[in-house]
């Protein structure tokens, strides 16, 4: 339960980061490169998923948390995005742009959130609470 508790504390924190800012479809994102992406539909935040802890070694358990949308990885790490056959967007409003490929800058949202929760003790507290609850539940 300690591992699960850490993941449980992490997932809503990431979702709140992803939904902190938003913009309309086909408009330019207000997110600067290097900062978490701004939401259009909230699908990325909604795709955040935790898996249950598994024992990877004696008395050692692991749980994971991450997005399941197709663009979850490229938003975190950055990379080249190609269209089918092209992509289009307005910039500024009313002027359409078209492109068959585009280099997306990294907009990390997992790592900053992980650093934040690890730094302020949230993950530590969640793990301890989970362990204590588990102990009380079985005794």
């Amino acid at each position, binding site marked *: 339960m300690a591992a699960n508790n850490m993941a449980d504390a992490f997932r809503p924190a990431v979702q709140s980061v992803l939904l902190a800012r938003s913009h309309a479809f086909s408009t330019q994102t207000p997110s600067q490169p290097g900062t978490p992406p701004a939401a259009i539909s909230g699908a990325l935040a909604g795709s955040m*998923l935790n898996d249950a802890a598994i*024992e990877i070694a004696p008395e050692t358990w692991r749980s994971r948390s991450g*997005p399941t949308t197709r663009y979850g*990885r490229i938003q975190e790490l950055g990379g080249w995005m190609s269209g089918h056959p092209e992509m289009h967007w307005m910039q500024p409003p009313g002027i359409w742009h078209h492109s068959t490929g585009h280099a997306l800058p990294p907009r990390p949202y997992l790592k900053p959130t992980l650093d934040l929760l690890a730094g302020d003790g949230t993950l530590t507290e969640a*793990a301890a609470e989970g362990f*204590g609850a588990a102990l009380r539940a079985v005794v």
Partner: protein
Amino acid sequence: MADYLEPVLATFIADANRYLGPVKDMRTAALLAEKANDALMESCVRLDDVLDDVSLSAGAAAREMNDLRNAVGEAALADSRLVSEMNDLRTAVAENTIAVNTLAGRVNDLRTSFITAAAAAAALGKASDAAGGRAAVAGAGMRLFGTGIRLTGNAIHWLIAGTTEFLAVAIPATVAAGAWAAAWAQGAQNVEQHMTAVYTATEATSKMFHVTAGQAVGLGDALQKAQNAANPNVYQALGSAVLIIRERFTGLAQVGVRVGRIFDGFAAKLVYDFSAAGGAGAKLTGLLSDAVPDLVMFGQIFGNIGHALLNFASDMPGLAEGLLLFLDAVSRVILAISKLPRYVIMGAMAFEEFNRWGGLAVTVLGKLGFSTTALSGGFFSLERASGVFMNIFRALPLALAAGIQKLGDFIMTIGPFDGKINAAGQSVLMFGQDLEEGIAGMSVGAALGITAVTAAMGFLIYKAVTAKTAAQDFAASLQGIANKASNFQVLNVLAANMGVLHEKAQAAQSSVSRLNGVLAAGHAAGQYSTNLRSVGAALAMDTQTANTFTAAQQSMDRQFVTVGRHAGDLAGTYHTTLLGAMALATTAGVKLNATMSKQAWAMAQIKIASLVQGYRSMGQPMGVVGSDMTALAIQSGLAATKVSALNQAWDEFMQNLTGGTSGLAGFVTSMKNIGQVAGTTSNNLATSTGSMTLSTKQFADALTHYTARGASAWTNFDQVVGSTIPQVTDWLRTAGAEGAISGAKFTQAILGMVRPLIPLAAKSKAAQAEILGLVQQADPAVKTWGQLSKAIKDAGASTSQTGKDINGATIKMGNMAQVAQQLGNVLSADLNNMMAEARLKVSGVSQALVTYDQKIRDGTSGTLSGHRALQTLIKDIMWATGDTYKQAAALAKLQAQWNNWHPATKTLTTDLVTSGSVPGSGGRHFTGGQPGTGNSVMIVHQHIAGSVLSDQQLARAAQGAGLRKTRRNGSTMTYIPGRLH
């Protein structure tokens, strides 16, 4: 097929090994300790068996030793018996010789006595002849009306002379008394009429003018107070009589009916007898025909006798006056004696009564054959007192000696047995005779000495038996305080007493435990010194002290519960509040804590029922009696709220506040109007301002200076602020105490009264300060003039609103039942809280819980001392909560378990060894990017004191729950690893 890139993830790993290791070690150690404990307990049991065997063997050996010792003792006794019988034989021979000699002497004494008796008989014959002659002369005397009283000529002379002398004095004295009565008659009648008028007038107006009849005639109000205090007693007696009559009236009524019927028959018979048919009327007429001449003749006889006596009296030589002077002197001597110190008179009277009634006792003892000394001397003589004392002192020993002699005589009659029994009987007889001679020959001094020693020993024994320890004295003093407390105070007193006694008992118990430890250590070390004996004595004393305090505490607790229960019963019976019930018991003279026994409580109930019946018989309906008690309860409740003291404090504050300006204004006004007669000022704002001719602005200006106009304005202003409004405020506060007005309404009402003063004080800081001081009674937050204006506006305060509030409060205060309930509820809550606190305070639950908790932490809860600690905790819980043993045991274990899981020393530390990241650079959608490495790893250390977990429990604690996903809308779904979602 698409080439999937590794997803971006945050990985969390919890490694419980660092925690589980120490916990497992703890568990292993606990299991070992448990096994060791079991082994120890088994050893103890075996040791106990061995001790039992040793004890049995020692007991058998001791019994054999005793048998041997008894055998030796019996042999020695048989030897001593043989020696004793030989001595008895020698003694019997010697006594037989003495008895023969004694018998010869008695024969001679008998002969001498015979000769003496013959001579006395001859003398008695001569004396009898002389007495016969004198009796014949005496028989010639007169006898009064055939009685045994001789009426000689000398006696007749004394009768006539004495009667005449008496009449010579009594007639003038009677005439003088008549003259005194005649002279005082008019004045006495005036006094009687005046006192009647005073009583009537004061009884009618006492409620208005508060002057009683006693005060009107200068006697003060002591009589009225006494009468008022006695009224409930009178009503109670009346009620008792009514109840008795009601219980027995059926029989009395039947008796009355029967008597009435008999009287009716008698009256009817009389009517018949005095009718013409009966003839009784004619007989009565004949009998009374000579009534008047007979009466005239009787008048003449008495008149002649009276005239003759008057003539004799006027010619008497005056000896009566001399006798009166003598009697007057004697009476003065008696008066002087009566003024001697009390102990002198008491001592003399005790001495006289000892001699007088002692003489009677001696006479009785003489009839029983125990009198040894003839009494002589007067009732105030030491000689007689000595005789009485010696007779009484010797009575019991003489009876004993007589009994011994009788026993000797009896033994001598038993029979032969070689004359031994006869000899033994003679020995007993002679012992009784010697005892009798010794007692008879005892001097007064020896008897007094023996009596003094006996009395002293008796006194010492009495003091030893009735002596009290300091603890008993202390407990008795606390009980005395409770006995003196009123019914309203007794619960507080009992609760306080229980607290004090509990502390004392705990201190004594601590000392007992300490001394027990000292004794145990000393015995273990093989020390049996004098010091240890003194420790043992101190231990016994402290144990007694602890028991005394505990018993007193339990007694107080029983009284506490009884008072509450009985007050509740009374409240239910007479439909009043708890306070009303206490007032009812007080009025009936019942102390609720003195109703511990069923009989005492039954008597108290009868007294209270009699009082209520008395009130009803005096015209108070049952409901009104309940209201009377409720009114008393309200009075007591208000006293308990200290509202009077609060009102007084605020009044003094306002008087101090307005004292400066009021005094100065009064001084200026007085100087201006000097020579004029000042009129009274009404305590009413309308009247005060109504008499002014100043406008509001002019009034406000006037308050800024002390001219004649300003002084008048200040006088009126201070009258309102310092007197009128505070009086209303006091009333509102009282209403608040009775629950008739809320705090918000209280504030609103005061602000409403203040509102019309705002424009009047607009220009004077001093006037504003007075108003602000007044308002702070209701709202301490209002400290400035601006805050006051805002508060008035926010509260919607106005004079008309204040009037509505006061009307509403007045209506509520008129509902006595509601007011009493309000105050009664407060008291009931206080009572319940007090009982709970008192019980918890003295229960010792907290200390017992700490002790048992410590046993659990030490791992000694399974030992004998741990078991004792648990039993102590259960017992205290049972006492404090009234639970059964089963309930208390469950509660104790639950509490201990809770403490186990929430120990004060529990530490929970977590270490974050590494913090993870999601590195990687670039990558196309579905094709680029690298999986992150260096994920976060969580190491948790958790130490829970006192827990022993199994391996399985630890594994379950460490593992997680099932696979799951939580959607944004809060629903969940099963997550299968490796599948794209």
